[in-house]
């Protein structure tokens, strides 16, 4: 018997029905021979099907006069893209345009996953609140979020965002911040000397914080008392960059958005499409994550709560130090598939005009007619993103697992 991978349960069957020595080799009831015959037959069927569909495709391609190949990727795209996080102009190539689409997809997926995690954990805890009203309110949100198709939710958020006032009567909650149906505009910091000093000081502050935290842990282990770390860390994080900025002798400059012609220029911008897509994706996925977090927390035995309380920990710290780390083991596998769902669902962007990978692919297909190649490219990119996410989360899961 060749060694079979242990994860295959069915191998047990094979072990049991292993051939007796008296059986002649290559008898048709010998499992090994049978396995070979099955696989061979299956392979032949597959080959035949592949040949059949392949020859159809070849005939159809010839008949329609399609020219296959990736040469079109180098040709000039000649169409504009509304928002890009890497530089792009209509004079760039189709390949570049697709890259812009992939970057946009990644952008919304990453931000969405982070927001979903934060919101999902918070709501998952609130779902178990002792205040029945709050728990039920969260429960209602979960039901609504999970049971209405995402596409409809996206239409809802998009129409809400576009119903804000126009650029000329934008709502300005803070000086320099403008909210309108052209999106969100906020001032950005100009990268001058003062900014560089402050940034350097911030890095220093983070390093200091790590050291302080480590020291506090050692101290706690030695004396049993925990020094007031949080206050120190906040002071360091807030104070050092300000000192750094002052030390440079200059002052921070802000690039304020200004209304010019039809729209704002300057500052940083989030487009309404991005905001609507992000809101829709996040709230939809969070509804699922909330339930996952709830189940995860409940999976931690009640004795853990009681033991922690007996140690005198506050309920906030029990949650953070005892319950959540254990719940994580239950939470991470389903959370991974929610991350994957969010990334894949970002393809609905095409319905509300965010230039994601699928949306740009659609335009490229129409301009070049190279449907097969473009579909192949975007499927490969999504597959790569999915596999990378799975691999990363598996790594995390293994680290958090019991050792």
């Amino acid at each position, binding site marked *: 018997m060749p060694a079979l991978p242990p994860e295959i349960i069915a191998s047990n069957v094979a072990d049991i029905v292993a051939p007796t020595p008296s059986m002649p080799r290559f008898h048709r009831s010998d499992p090994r021979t049978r396995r070979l015959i099955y696989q061979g037959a299956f392979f032949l069927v597959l080959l035949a099907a592949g040949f059949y569909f392949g020859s159809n495709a070849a005939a159809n391609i010839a008949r329609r006069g399609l020219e296959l190949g990736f040469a079109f990727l180098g040709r000039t795209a000649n169409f*504009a893209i509304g928002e890009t996080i890497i530089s792009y102009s209509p004079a760039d190539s189709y390949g570049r345009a697709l890259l812009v689409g992939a970057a946009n997809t990644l952008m919304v997926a990453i931000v969405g996953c982070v927001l979903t995690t934060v919101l999902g954990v918070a709501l998952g805890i609130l779902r178990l609140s002792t205040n029945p009203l709050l728990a039920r309110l969260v429960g209602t949100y979960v039901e609504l979020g999970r049971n209405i198709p995402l596409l409809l939710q996206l239409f809802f958020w998009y129409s809400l965002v576009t119903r804000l006032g*126009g650029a000329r009567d934008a709502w300005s909650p803070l000086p320099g911040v403008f909210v309108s*149906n052209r999106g969100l505009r906020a001032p950005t910091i100009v990268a001058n000397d003062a900014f560089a000093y402050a940034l350097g000081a911030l890095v220093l502050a983070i390093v200091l914080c790590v050291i302080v935290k480590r020291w506090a842990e050692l101290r706690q282990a030695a004396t049993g008392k925990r020094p007031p770390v949080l206050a120190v860390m906040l002071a360091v994080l807030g104070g050092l960059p300000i000192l750094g900025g002052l030390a440079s002798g200059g002052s921070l400059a802000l690039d304020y958005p200004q209304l010019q012609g039809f729209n704002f220029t300057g500052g940083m911008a989030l487009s309404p499409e991005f905001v609507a897509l992000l809101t829709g994706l996040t709230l939809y996925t969070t509804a699922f994550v909330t339930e996952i977090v709830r189940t995860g927390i409940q999976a931690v035995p009640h004795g853990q709560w009681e033991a922690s309380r007996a140690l005198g920990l506050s309920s906030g710290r029990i949650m953070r130090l005892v319950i959540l780390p254990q719940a994580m083991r239950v939470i991470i596998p389903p959370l991974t598939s929610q991350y994957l769902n969010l990334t894949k669902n970002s393809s609905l962007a095409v319905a509300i005009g965010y230039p994601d990978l699928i949306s740009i692919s659609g335009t490229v297909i129409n301009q070049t007619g190279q449907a097969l190649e473009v579909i192949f490219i975007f499927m490969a990119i999504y597959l790569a993103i999915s596999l990378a996410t799975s691999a990363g989360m598996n790594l995390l899961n293994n680290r958090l697992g019991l050792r």
Partner: protein
Amino acid sequence: MKIQRLVGACIASLVGLFQPALAGTTLDAIKQRGSLKCAVQGPSNPGFGVPDTQGRWQGFNVDFCRAIAIMIFGDGEKIQIAPLTTQTRFPALQSGEVDVLTNNTTFVLVRDTQLKFNFPAITFFDGQGIMVPKKLNVQSALKLDGATVCVQPGTTTELALTDFFRKHNMKFTPVVIQARDELTRAYAEGRCDALTSDATTLAAQRTTVSNPADHIILPERLSKEPLGLTVRHGDEELRDIVAWAFNTLVNAEEFGITKANVDEMLKGTDPQIRRLLGVDPGLGAALGVDEKYAYTIIKTLGNYGELYEKYLGEKSPLGIPRGLNNLYTNGGIMYVPPSR
């Protein structure tokens, strides 16, 4: 080869889901099937093709499909309408999923050559325009530097728009939304400063905003958009039928034959009219269709002008002036080959 045929037989045996295999030309297949398959802009396009409350397709383009069906079957109801998106229409025609595109496809060089299509008739002379809200106080497209423009993907409009702004050294931000109704809504709610599309489409889109009078279509035309009926290369018989179905509608208008007076016209003495209506036979036989084809088309649908006024004209909700689409005798450029 045997296996290939076997697998083919297996697949083909899933009867009911599949149409019988084509025998010979597309026209033969249409006759065998008993209905003509036309594509319209989906899910719906006001004036050109919309399902009414009872679920019947109505519209300018739908009636061209009916006219072609009358040529083939003598019955304008033997049609199947496929609402297709701009991205699926060409693969659908190429694969034979539909027989004719009656969905406002622009006749351009690459579609003729690379996609291997024929455009037997141009049903509508259009041009890409830009619509803006009146309150923007913009009178010319050249004043749109820095504007945000709503545009539908998968059309030639995206390309023409980019070309126009680059040519005049202006900047713009596109907002690209696939579904036309969502795009119009985004524009109506002020997400974009301007909306671009073929001028007639703009007129149709204007009817669906809450106050159409608040929007104007700027005078500039960014491109020529001759919208045609589309068939595949190689479908020569179908191509002839499509072409002469359309030409009949226009020639009827030229001769003054209308839905109301067509019966009277049958008794007339004008040899051209007698030939067209099949009183003096010959044309039908030449096309391989019923001699009364023109009579039936006009009796059922009306002439080109009547269709225009009914679905698109100034009295319809779309309110598009005849303009270029007037007969050449009335100042337009609608000039079709004579039926003789």
